[in-house]
């Protein structure tokens, strides 16, 4: 033995003999007779095999082989080659016991090897694995996979340029789809397939020199194989964390392992590779028709979102969004296509929130813009009323909301501004049905985003441009759109969750349990800047003929919220002024139906009743209680709740015939004074006369623009509405103000006793206001009708205009009031010249 050994160890004879022996591969020739002549490594390898495969690997001899290979690593390639040859022979002869032993030996050698020498051995090792995988025996396939996984977990430090894994990817993917008749075996094969894929991924992903696993030809096999296994799970539990290993049995069931593997794959994907993972995912869902129902799609995409590197997460959203409209295999049927689209959008809304946290800058607006574009496309498609299309739109809006929900507040405002800038303006020219629909949809999205916004300061919630845009839409022609807009205002105004309590008008606020907080300095500045624009737009909103009950209630809620949020002594006058103007308009606006008039009266009384609840105004409370009491006995239709239809009212029950049941401006002033609130502003006549009935759009936008830009008055003279009492008297058909001297209410008497001259003066002013109001709010036709029979209108108008032009020169009449009052004057001069240009032509 030793002789033979030293013979072989030294000299050239070694190689010669070696190659000679190698050629003689038939064991029958060499085994017994000339084993002494065989090279040492072959003898060592031969010795590890027991006589009978049941005995297993001969441990002591295996140790010898290991020691040998470690001490002379240059022999490793030959050892590997020889082991492989032996195993191939055994596979061919179906001696599986020996194959298993050979594989075990290879595993041990692999682990024992130093990494520098590993490359020599790996080639034959992988050939061995492939050979086993090629066999039809599940046991060998599984064995091969296990060995491969062990190999995959070894970190190599030498590059392996020529190694390719395409067979492994193909074979492991095929194993993932195993359809073995025995369920247990099938699961084992599938598990092995997934483990194998995991191994390939681990091996290749970190090494740039080997095959690029992200290429389509590999991803198209790997990703569907994983998904196919995942979708067989009975239920989909999405765990957000990355530590899937903490769950029990992750290694036991194919779906779980596949999921873990997908997580790993996605987690390792860099930006450029995300697409190559996502594309097969989307195709798989299309092919297997997994969008409807979309449980699995949601599950999968959540997994992807949770495992992807955070900075890339928006690219998933992007990819899905681009796929929204893609045609699936069932594209021929438009109905099913819409359904698929809706389901995809639902998936989107489920995952978009996860992306939101990490999105920054342009990607946010990109996503929003994309969603809006899809919405617009959907609206354009929606010629017939399809419920699926509706669902799709809902889902998109939800997605928008979800996304916005997870953005910081300052971005929400940006987004809302962005959305409202996309709202088509229905005011100029004729709005088509699609436009109106798009408007509604966009407002719905806005509402969704708005609900996620937590208002802290009004000035931040309503930047000037945003407020302006909102108020512009508030004059939309569709009642539904207007109601929607009010709801947006509600959600943005409501800081103390009072909105649900104030859904419908009421006079009993005590039981509602409203949350009231003193309003801050900033809010006061905000309201002094923009209050008029808001109030004026709400006032106009109440004057529209097309209002439904919903509109009126919605505006009530907005006003009530404003009362609560802006409760302070500085604002109470503005609010009361508006309330009184509304009351006035309910009597004088000719376009309102009887029901509308009653509704407005009820709103007025409700709002007035609210004020004492947000501020210490005891007197006002008493006063309004009195009115409520007398109304409830005499005219319950003037109290909330609002009704859609009011039964035929007798002329005596009409609001205009019940002046003593109205809220009286003077009385209110008294009440305020009694509570120590400066009421001077209230005494000035109402600036809310910008009736919205005539050429609404034009006028409205003008008033709006002026107010929103906060143009401050240059003139500090204040003027109420400007018509001389004479002219008022001579104007026919204009309703008399209820607070005329004839009225016999207690207040009127008291006032008459108190100071008749002062009262008269005010009354004259009030009448002016009424007349003014009538001219501004009544339709032109109406005005013409009532004026024509008796007067030469041209003369009359000239008179009026003269008076207007003279007005600025007149000394200030009545009380002096700043703020909104001055603006009201400002608007007056152009109010006639601009709003009634037709009159000049006449």
């Amino acid at each position, binding site marked *: 033995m030793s002789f033979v050994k030293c013979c072989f160890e030294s000299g050239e004879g070694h190689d010669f003999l070696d190659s000679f022996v190698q050629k003689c*591969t038939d064991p029958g020739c060499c085994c017994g007779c000339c084993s002494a002549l065989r090279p040492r490594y072959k003898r060592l390898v031969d010795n590890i095999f027991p006589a009978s495969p049941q005995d297993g690997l001969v441990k002591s001899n295996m140790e010898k082989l290991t020691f040998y290979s470690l001490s002379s690593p240059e022999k490793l390639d030959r050892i590997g*080659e020889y082991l*492989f*040859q032996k195993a*191939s*022979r055994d596979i*061919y002869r179906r001696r599986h016991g020996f194959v298993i032993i050979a594989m075990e030996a290879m595993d041990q050698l692999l682990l024992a090897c130093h990494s520098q020498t590993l490359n020599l051995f*790996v*080639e034959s090792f*992988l*050939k061995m694995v*492939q*050979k086993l995988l*090629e066999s*039809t025996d599940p046991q060998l396939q599984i064995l091969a996979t296990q060995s491969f996984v062990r190999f995959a977990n070894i970190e190599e430090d030498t590059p392996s340029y*020529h*190694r*390719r*894994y*395409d*067979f*492994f990817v*193909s*074979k492991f*993917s*095929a194993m*993932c*789809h*195993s*359809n073995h008749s025995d369920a247990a075996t099938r699961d084992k094969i599938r598990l092995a397939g997934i483990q194998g894929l995991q191994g390939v991924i681990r091996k290749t992903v970190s090494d740039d020199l080997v095959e690029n696993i992200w*290429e*389509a*030809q590999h991803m*198209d*096999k790997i990703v*569907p*194989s994983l998904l*196919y296994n995942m979708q067989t799970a009975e239920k989909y539990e999405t765990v957000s964390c990355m530590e899937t290993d903490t769950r029990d049995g992750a290694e036991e069931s194919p779906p779980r392992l596949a999921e873990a593997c997908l997580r790993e794959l996605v987690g390792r994907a860099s930006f450029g590779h995300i697409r190559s993972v996502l594309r*097969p995912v989307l*195709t*798989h869902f299309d*092919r*297997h*028709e997994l969008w409807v129902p979309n449980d699995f799609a949601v599950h999968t995409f959540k997994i992807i979102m949770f495992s992807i590197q955070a900075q890339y997460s928006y690219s998933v959203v992007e990819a899905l969004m681009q796929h929204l409209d893609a045609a699936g*295999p069932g594209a021929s049927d438009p109905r099913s296509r819409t359904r698929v689209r809706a389901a995809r959008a639902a998936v989107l809304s489920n995952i978009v929130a996860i992306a939101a946290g990490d999105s920054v800058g342009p990607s946010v607006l990109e996503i929003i813009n994309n969603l809006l574009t899809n919405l617009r496309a959907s609206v354009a498609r929606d010629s017939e009323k399809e419920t699926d299309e509706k669902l799709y739109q809902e889902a998109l809006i939800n997605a928008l909301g979800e996304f916005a929900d997870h953005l910081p507040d300052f971005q929400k405002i940006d987004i809302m501004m962005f959305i409202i800038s996309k709202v088509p303006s229905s005011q100029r020219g004729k709005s088509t049905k699609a436009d109106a629909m798009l408007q509604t949809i966009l407002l719905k999205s806005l509402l969704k985003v708005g609900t996620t916004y937590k208002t802290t300061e009004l000035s931040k919630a309503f930047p000037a441009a945003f407020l302006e845009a909102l108020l512009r839409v508030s004059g939309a022609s569709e009642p539904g759109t207007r109601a929607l807009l009010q709801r947006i205002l509600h959600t943005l105004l409501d800081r103390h969750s009072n909105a649900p309590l104030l859904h419908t008008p009421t006079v009993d606020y005590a039981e509602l349990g409203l949350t009231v907080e003193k309003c801050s300095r900033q809010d006061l500045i905000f309201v002094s800047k923009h209050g008029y624009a808001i109030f004026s737009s709400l006032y106009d909103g109440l004057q529209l003929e097309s209002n439904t009950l919903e509109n009126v209630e919605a505006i009530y809620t907005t006003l009530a919220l404003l009362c609560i949020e802006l409760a302070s002594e500085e604002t109470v006058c503005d609010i009361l002024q508006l309330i009184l103007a509304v009351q006035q308009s309910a009597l004088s606006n000719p376009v309102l139906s009887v029901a509308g008039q009653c509704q407005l009266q009820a709103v007025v009384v409700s709002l007035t009743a609210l004020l004492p609840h947000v501020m210490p105004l005891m007197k006002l409370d008493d006063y309004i209680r009195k009115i409520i009491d007398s109304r409830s006995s005499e005219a319950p239709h003037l109290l909330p709740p609002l009704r859609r239809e009011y039964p035929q009212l007798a002329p005596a029950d009409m609001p205009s015939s019940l002046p003593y049941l109205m809220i009286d401006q003077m009385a209110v002033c008294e009440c305020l004074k009694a509570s120590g609130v400066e009421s001077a502003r209230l005494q000035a006549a109402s600036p809310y006369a910008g009736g919205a009935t005539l050429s609404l759009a034009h006028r409205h936008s003008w008033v709006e623009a002026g107010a929103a830009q906060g143009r401050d008055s240059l003139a500090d003279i204040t003027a109420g509405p400007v018509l001389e009492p004479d002219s008022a008297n001579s104007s026919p058909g204009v309703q008399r103000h209820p607070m005329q001297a004839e009225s016999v209410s207690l207040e009127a008497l008291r006032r008459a006793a108190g100071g008749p001259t002062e009262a008269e003066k005010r009354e004259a002013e009030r009448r002016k206001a009424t007349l003014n109001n009538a001219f501004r709010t009544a339709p032109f036709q109406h005005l013409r009708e009532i004026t024509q029979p008796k007067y030469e209108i041209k003369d009359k108008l000239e008179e009026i205009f003269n008076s207007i032009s003279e007005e600025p020169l007149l000394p200030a009449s009545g009380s002096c009031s700043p703020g909104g009052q001055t603006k009201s004057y400002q608007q007056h001069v152009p109010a006639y010249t601009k709003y009634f240009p037709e009159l000049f032509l006449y």
Partner: protein
Amino acid sequence: MEDYKFLFKVVLVGNAGVGKTCLVRRFTQGLFPPGQGATIGVDFMIKTVEVDGEKVKLQIWDTAGQERFRSITQSYYRSAHALILVYDISCQPTFDCLPDWLREIEEYANNKVLRILVGNKTDREDREIPRHIGEDFAQRHGMYFLETSAKEAENVERLFMEIAVELMEQAKCKELPKYDGSLGPINGKTTSVGDSGCCLRS
């Protein structure tokens, strides 16, 4: 033992239920599985045959015919050396789909791939597609044509043998490096005709 000279990848495609799996089984295992269930995804078989005294290893990938697995099966076309397009002679729709299949092959497979049209189930009495129709179709599209019966083992052997011969001739005239015991391609990499071409396509 690892002494083959060539390794070729053969992929079977065609509608569900035309008998792809049965053809493969018949060839590799010599049996006809009566109640063969639908293939899921892809199946894999190997068989070594001898051509002119040289051993040729055929790696046969048997794909699922079902529509829903189409995306994964397509990914196997790319590396194929030969594509066997199978239809059922007793089922007109499977023949009607052939143009669709050809389109897919055009799109996903190597353009130099060897294509063979096979009409299976000749043992069936209720033939719907006459032999010459199939032949015409094959000729028009530059494919080899053969009618087989996996059940009766008719032409099955011949089919694969001819593929092996044809591919070997191709390989030989291109003088591509052959597999040779000790130096040969490594681990999973196969010596192949047009292998480089197909990689470029990706």
